[in-house]
């Protein structure tokens, strides 16, 4: 069992004991990511995505005592959310979304290259690039702890390490270390996605 899974089990125990602070911390960390996870799988419908995440939290809270740490807690929540959405589609006699998320597909290697390819006004490629951007964002979402936030602060907001340290209320060395771990985790996750697939060219 990884360190993350150990911590997740400990967190689940605290929540089951009634630790409200632990629960609100988990909610604030998981909700934005789960919302984005659901949004893409519900045709971009914000209210429906919110409803799916609301049901996910209810189910997860009810079943939290069954969480054994086999996977990261966030992954466990994602699975509940995924099943909730599938059930909704079935009960509403709707077909599943025709756009299957890239991370749910097997072949994504070439999409990573297409992400930083020169822009084009071909709509097929634009769709591809949009989906690829979402894949990268989804990967950032599944990183542990606050790695995703740190990566956005650094590479999108352009914060310095010192500014990141101030935001986290920690020392510069600790912030550097966190950023290094976040980069490494992101690189590993994207690499695993790329390595597990066959090469595929964008349309």
């Amino acid at each position: 069992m990884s360190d993350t899974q150990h911590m997740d089990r400990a967190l689940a125990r605290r929540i089951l004991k009634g630790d409200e602070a632990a629960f609100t911390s988990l909610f604030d960390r998981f909700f934005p990511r789960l919302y984005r996870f659901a949004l893409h799988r519900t045709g971009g419908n914000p209210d429906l995505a919110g409803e799916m995440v609301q049901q996910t939290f209810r189910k997860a809270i009810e079943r939290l005592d069954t969480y054994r740490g086999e996977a990261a807690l966030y992954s466990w929540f994602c699975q509940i959310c995924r099943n909730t959405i599938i059930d909704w589609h079935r009960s509403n006699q709707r077909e599943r979304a025709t756009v299957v998320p890239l991370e749910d597909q097997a072949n994504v290697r070439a999409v990573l290259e297409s992400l930083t390819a020169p822009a084009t006004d071909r709509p097929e490629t634009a769709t591809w690039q949009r989906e690829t951007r979402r894949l990268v964002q989804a990967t950032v979402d599944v990183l542990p702890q606050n790695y995703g936030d740190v990566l956005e602060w650094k590479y999108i907001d352009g914060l310095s390490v010192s500014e990141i340290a101030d935001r986290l209320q920690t020392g510069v060395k600790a912030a550097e270390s966190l950023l290094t771990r976040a980069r490494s985790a992101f690189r590993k996750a994207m690499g695993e996605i790329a390595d597990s697939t066959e090469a595929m060219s964008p349309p």
Partner: protein
Amino acid sequence: MSDNIHDSTEAAPDRVAELIRAAGRREAPPDAIYQRVRADALQAFAARTGRRRRLRTGLSALAAGVVAAIILGVVMTRPAAPPQQRVAELLRATGVVEAMRPGAQTTWQTLMAGSRHQLPQGSRLRTAGDARAALALSDDITLRLDSGTSISLVSADHVALHTGRIYIDAGEQAGNQIAVTTPAGVARDIGTRFEVQYLDNQLRLRIRDGKVELSHASDLMIADAGEQLSIDGTGAVERSTIAPDARQWQWIEQIAHAPEIDGRPVRVLLNWVARETGKTLRFSDASVESEVGTTLLHGDISLLQPLQALSVMLATTDFGFAVGDDGQIEVWSKTRE
């Protein structure tokens, strides 16, 4: 696909930065949806845990950024126990050990050794000079204070370490868990024995057994058995190793609380000594291992340190022992040497 995504050198094109920038910022959920789902989730949490909570309204999680809620929330929102609820009992004290009851503000009371003093939630304790103290937080969890230490008993499973050094033995029952809050972070055990020191704005964890989760700023770290984890005032983290029977643990033995051994098997004493000293037991043969479970002791070892107690009590039996440099205590039969 190029292999740049696997590059680990800064001189190569920074694919991580390129991908993050190209992907852009993740979309934030609408605040109205966040608030609605949060309120519903809190109600479900309250119903599930069977407690009535004051529902929080308020800060957008996105506006607040990453909040060290575990640190603040454990200290500030833990449910209040009925006043004067006992959360600890003094097991042993050497030197001047003082306690301040909740609400007493400035009145420190010296605790008498052997008094089995009951300490309510919110009590503060401090050890002056070369004093030390051992407390029972539950049937299975014990807490020891080294000299020059000041703590608050926030609850039966939460201690605030203001300064000094403490040692936690969370016992052997699965599910025991205790949190230690310091100004530099929060340590939580995952079934273990560990030491926390907070001095001069520096936090140090030593893990003898099990694992400890440490929350520091917005970071979470795990320290394993045999590890020492130090965080200095700048937030720099350093890891090193420490053996379970290293001499740095010896202060703990000086304030160890001995079990009752009168009428109990030698095995009880041996297990206690092994646990306190961090050593493992080795028996010369299977017969000895069996006999220590059936040979009964008589006497009182309450004021003795572990190895002293072992020496005194085994002298009354047919067993001999030796402490090796290999981290083991060997036990043999004197009649079969």
